């Protein structure tokens, strides 16, 4: 995308009669936050003079560090193609800065930039292609989500299948109007489940794009009387929603994962990078799969990875290496889900991979058998470990992994950990419908 400057943005806003600008940033939990300003404040915003109270955002900043500046990235300027009741709205993604002009360490976007700069110092740029899946559910009389998919609602609603397909087509068109290049858009395995893939790009651009993607998908679904959910496993017994993340490293315009002379055309770098991801997989899961619900997706039988292994085709593995070679050589990490904070998820995966390269961690031999069908002893014999079974286990692994903690920075790590431990404790004291069903009459 061409570099946009202040004058161009101001002109576009005027030409298109934009009424409001949303200044967006993503908090540590991965939730997009907005500060809406009228157009009259735009120039001030572009000059980085807009302040907000950081302490009002959970896990962000303490009372004593509450004054924060929003510094917009002019390249992220987009006018939303859909109208709100207040007229045309545009957005700018922002970085958060301290009053003394330094980058705020608790801003996930700043943190990703830091990790990317460290990679750049070694000559590497990271390319990423995400595949986010989501469910379309019927919205109820309060405009809120139900877990009824439009497909299975067949008896009650009219030609339900078309509803989801139409909504998705509208999403594709809207995303294209916003500059996305859509590569694939299709119905997924489960009823009501969809996937839209867009073209790969550099890591920062893609992290922004994932946030924009989720916002757009939700907004368009709403206009169709549907609710789009990126919850990893909304329904027991059917496939959950993942966000498989294709990634590769480039150095001086060359894909360093490709080696035309090796038997499988994968370079040592690719093997080391995979080795790094695999050796840090148990810790980085806390970031790529950050919710209680994430671990209900990572169970055998639903095309989600459970075991730490890699393969060329096998979909039960953590990493799959697609057949494409040359500039398209890449690995597909299959555990991330769309509830993750993309800025943090890309930072930890990159750092894990780079650690693999630095320490020459040779990835083990590929596993082409269906690991779901191997028993514990067989897996142990070939040295296949599994991903954490729940959020608590993942958080405990995170505590032990200084490389991943460094990739988050102390500030984000501490706040993330606090928030997630609270989430775990809240969950742990709930009495679930499953317990009532199974125990109420039995004892």
């Amino acid at each position, binding site marked *: 995308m061409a570099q946009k400057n202040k004058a161009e943005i101001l002109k576009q806003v005027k030409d298109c009669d934009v009424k409001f600008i949303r200044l967006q940033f993503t908090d540590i939990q991965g939730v997009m936050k907005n500060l809406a300003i009228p157009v009259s404040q735009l120039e001030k915003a572009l000059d980085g003079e807009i302040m907000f109270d950081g302490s009002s955002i959970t896990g962000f900043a303490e009372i004593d560090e509450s004054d924060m500046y929003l510094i917009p990235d002019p390249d992220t300027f987009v006018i939303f193609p*859909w*109208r*709100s*009741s207040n007229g045309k709205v545009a957005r700018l993604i922002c970085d958060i800065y301290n009053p003394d002009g330094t980058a705020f360490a608790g801003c996930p976007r700043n943190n990703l930039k830091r990790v990317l700069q460290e990679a750049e110092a070694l000559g590497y740029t990271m390319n990423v292609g995400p595949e986010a899946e989501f469910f379309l559910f*019927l*919205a*109820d*009389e*309060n*405009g809120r989500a139900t877990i009824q998919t*439009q497909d299975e609602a067949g008896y009650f*609603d*009219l*030609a339900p299948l*078309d*509803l989801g397909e*139409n909504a998705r087509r509208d999403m594709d068109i809207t995303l294209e109007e916003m500059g996305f290049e859509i590569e694939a858009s299709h119905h997924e395995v489960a009823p009501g489940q969809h996937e839209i893939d867009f073209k790969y790009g550099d890591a920062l651009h893609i992290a922004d794009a994932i946030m924009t993607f989720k916002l757009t998908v939700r907004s368009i679904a709403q*206009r*169709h*009387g*549907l*609710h789009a959910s990126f919850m990893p496993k909304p329904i027991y017994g059917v496939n959950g929603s993942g966000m498989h993340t294709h990634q590769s490293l480039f150095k001086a315009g060359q894909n360093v994962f490709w080696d035309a002379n090796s038997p499988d055309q994968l370079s040592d770098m690719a093997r080391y990078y995979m080795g790094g991801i695999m050796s840090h997989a148990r810790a980085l899961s806390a970031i790529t799969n950050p919710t209680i619900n994430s671990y209900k997706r990572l169970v055998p039988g639903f095309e989600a990875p459970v075991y730490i292994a890699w393969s060329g085709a096998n979909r039960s593995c953590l990493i799959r290496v697609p057949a494409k070679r040359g500039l398209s050589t890449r690995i597909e990490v299959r555990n991330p889900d769309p509830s993750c904070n993309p800025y943090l998820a890309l930072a930890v995966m990159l750092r894990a991979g780079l650690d693999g390269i630095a320490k020459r961690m040779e990835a083990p031999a590929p596993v082409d058998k269906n690991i779901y069908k191997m028993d514990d002893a067989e897996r142990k014999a070939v040295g296949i470990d599994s991903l954490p079974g729940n959020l608590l286990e993942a958080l405990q692994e995170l505590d032990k992994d200084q490389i991943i903690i460094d990739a988050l920075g102390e500030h984000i790590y501490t706040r993330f950990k606090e928030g997630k431990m609270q989430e775990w404790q809240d969950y742990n004291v709930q009495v679930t419908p499953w317990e009532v069903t199974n125990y109420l009459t039995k004892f």
Partner: protein
Amino acid sequence: MSGVKIIIADSKENSRRILKDTLQHAGYQIQAEARNAPELLRKTRRLFPDLVIIDANLEGGSPEEIAGIIEDDNLSSVLVITDDIHRRSLQEIAHLLKPYTEETLVSVIEVALLYRSKVASIQQEVTRLKENLSNRKLIEKAKGMIMKTQGLTESEAYRYLQKQSMNRAMSMKDLAQEIILSEEKQSIIR
């Protein structure tokens, strides 16, 4: 008014029934009923009604928001039936104030439908004119390029374009686009 298809949206069953009876009595076809805003959006996108009648107290979304979506995406005409409280936010949307008689309702519906068909034909005309204008711009640009590269006069260049268009069975617009594109490529090489 025969054959006019209407979806009615009201969260109260009783009001829906009364409205439905009134409309049917006046000869309209009730295509579907919706109890809330998301259901209305789903049914409207599926059934292509001529008119959607929304009660201002419909649950699940504000009437101006829902009417905005339906009108922006060109799904149907909209009429909001409102009480005095909601009236102020509906200035840009066709609305009818309660209480009303059947005669008022019918004439408001007829005006809304008439207005929609007029707007639709104006919109078609605008689209056609816009397209003509942008085609004309392309053809002018290509003509200028040909005058320059082949040393032709304006009328010669236009005749050249016409001939090429006929010989190659391409529209003038597509031909002009091709000429501009190849000329731009040439200039990058140069």
